[in-house]
């Protein structure tokens, strides 16, 4: 056989190089260029050997026992490779060792007699699909606790496998109902009193649709609600309304015709972390105003904005889906450059800042944009609109 088609040659070369990489790590450290190159080369050679073996196996030019040996060789290569990583690279070390265990399982399956092999494969298939089913069923249904059995099976038996392989999706697309999109608006305030807005997602700034859709996911990650309502709800609502009245110009108070869940949306801990991280990202991206390199960021106000879905009746009346009143902003806090919230006791925190239009047909309309007032863009009380209602 052509020596290039001998999988063991590739595998042994790979193992040798990975062994050399491990030795180099002792002297040069994990991240010396030579170490990385030798390690990567070793991994690719071992993988080439493994892949070639599996191809030849389907051609019946290679026995299952030889393939089992190659699988063990690949498992050993991954184990060596995983050991080359420094402790700081713990996720890659964990991945290498995890995949190494999977390959040992493959090797065992390969050497089993035909019936036992079928039983083993059937067992693995069942494990795989039962696991996926637990991911589907362990999600909380609306207003109820999730299945006890499904959540426990998921947590104790399948979680590790499913998250490791990214098979943990519940596939609940557009359920229970399609909801509105979440946007993030950042108001970056500089030391010299200048400011700029940065809004995501933005179709015009996304070079391709996929980028735009990813930005929609970025904003959606801040939209997970906290599990519990605040215990002192009446108190914080009153505080928010009083602060609104004291604000110049005034910010529309929230009345009880609006549901609590529409007035106040505290994010989950996960979403709060996302917001902190995005604040840091924005502060790095827009560190200085474009023409003033010496001016720094003072703070960033972040608003989560729900873009409501226009009702069929409103569209039939030719209302604009981009009308300002279609947007429902919630204040997520003021952040410093390090992503730390400046005032966790801000009375407007997580509250709706309504954008409303007066609805009296006998008078010219007045648009009250609490977001602009809160952000500081609008310094005077709203006046009559010239445009259509």
């Amino acid at each position, binding site marked *: 056989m052509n020596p290039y088609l001998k999988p063991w040659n590739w595998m042994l070369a790979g193992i040798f190089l990975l062994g050399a990489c491990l030795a180099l790590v002792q002297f040069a450290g994990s991240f010396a260029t030579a170490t990385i190159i030798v390690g990567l080369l070793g991994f690719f050679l071992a993988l080439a050997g493994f*892949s070639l073996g599996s191809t030849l196996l389907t051609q019946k030019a290679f026995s299952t026992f030889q393939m089992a040996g190659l699988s063990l060789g690949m498992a050993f290569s991954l184990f060596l490779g995983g050991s080359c990583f420094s402790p700081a690279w713990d996720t890659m070390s964990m991945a290498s060792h995890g995949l190494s265990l999977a390959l040992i399982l493959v090797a065992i399956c390969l050497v089993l007699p035909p019936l036992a092999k079928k039983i083993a494969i059937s067992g693995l298939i069942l494990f795989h699909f039962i696991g996926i089913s637990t991911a589907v069923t362990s999600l909380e249904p609306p207003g109820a606790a999730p299945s006890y059995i499904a959540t426990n099976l998921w947590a104790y038996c399948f979680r590790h496998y499913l998250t490791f392989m*990214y098979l943990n999706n519940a596939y609940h697309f557009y359920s229970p*109902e399609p909801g509105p999109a979440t946007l993030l608006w950042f108001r970056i305030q500089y030391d010299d009193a200048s400011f700029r807005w940065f809004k995501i997602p933005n179709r015009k700034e996304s070079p391709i649709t996929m980028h735009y859709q990813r930005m929609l996911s970025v904003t959606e990650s801040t939209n997970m609600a906290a599990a519990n309502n605040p215990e002192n709800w009446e108190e914080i609502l009153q505080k928010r309304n009083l602060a609104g009245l004291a604000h110049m110009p005034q910010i529309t108070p929230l009345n009880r015709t609006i549901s609590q869940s529409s007035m106040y949306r505290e994010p989950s801990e996960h979403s709060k972390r996302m917001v902190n*991280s995005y604040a840091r990202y924005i502060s790095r991206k827009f560190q200085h105003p474009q023409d003033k390199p010496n001016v720094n960021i003072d703070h960033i106000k972040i608003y989560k904005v729900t873009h409501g879905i226009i009702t069929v009746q409103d569209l039939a009346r030719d209302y604009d889906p981009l009308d300002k009143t279609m947007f429902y902003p919630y204040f997520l806090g003021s952040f410093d450059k390090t992503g730390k919230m400046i005032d966790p006791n801000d009375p407007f925190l997580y509250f709706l800042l309504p954008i409303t239009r007066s609805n009296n047909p006998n008078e010219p309309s007045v648009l009250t944009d609490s977001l602009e007032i809160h952000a500081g863009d609008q310094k005077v009380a709203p006046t009559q609109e010239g445009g259509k209602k």
Partner: protein
Amino acid sequence: MSSFPASPSIFERKNSSKSVGADNNASFSWLEAWNTFWFTPQDPYTIGLMRLFTGLLIAFITFSYSFDLLAFVGPEGFLDKTSMDELRKENPIFITPPSWFDGPKELDKSVYIWSPYIHLENTTWIWAIHFGVLGANLCMAAGLFTRMTTILSWMGAMFYVQRASSALFGMDAMILILLFYMMLAPGWQAYSLDRLIMKHFKRKAGDKDWDAPAEPLISTNVIARMVQIHFCIIYMAAATSKLQGAAWWNGTALWGVLANYEFNPMHVPAYTAFITFLAKHRLLWEILMTSGCVFTVVLETAFPFLVWHRNTRWLMISGSVLLHLGIALLMGLTTFSLCMMTLVLSFVPPETIKSLTDWLFGGKKEPQNA
């Protein structure tokens, strides 16, 4: 060419075994059905074409990161290193204890996520890995060093989804499913450069059978079946979860999709004119919205059952293609829809794929496998 195991339905198979007297032992017939379902060799054309499409899709998805790579996977991106460390080390998982009277308890704090992008701070290396992954994706699509490049493509895709976890959507889950199965399948056996290279070597070596068709393999069938079952689970989960929502029952859910400015092409005047026209004609609107909801829910509910029957399989496949075509056109989720269509391809028998590609590209008829 061997027949596709899914062609006669599994139920017909079971009945036929009963007719020859196997019904004395019901458990045996179930085992036989299980054995036939999973362990009958299958021709490689369906899996080969799925590999090709998956390769093209993942190449595009990887390429799409190029426009803003460092914002998604860079050390100072949307999710910076501090956030990533918090996410993977301080993400508590709560579990309900066996007692009725105790509250949820914390089981674990760490999540099994892995990616070099979590650790890399050098942007040159980030770009190098990115282009390396893109190269592997293209080789996978072409079927060059298929097994190796498919494994590398799967690993590469994992690097992104595990790192850019806040920028993911349904499409990422679907492409990972495809890659997971393609990594395990012998996808090089059809529509690949590897196959051509293998033929070339065989001819050069004087092998008389150099042009023989690829052998049907059990592993091809196992993977095709796994994709099929997974697809049915996806549809079943999507359908049953939709049935929890009032809007899917009263037929208005589709409006939430069609009139959502951020998701669909409402910025295109023709599209807005179309839905405004619908809105102004209530009866037409009601008919379209209700039929759209009924079509979606009925298809997603019925698919996992009816796709296994020969008589209804094509109806289900066509319905699924139609649904995802609609999602692509009306919601702009083109890549997601293409992923779903590639998944549903697993239900198309290999001989149909072979006939179709022969007809399209003028391939010669290969002799049938025994």
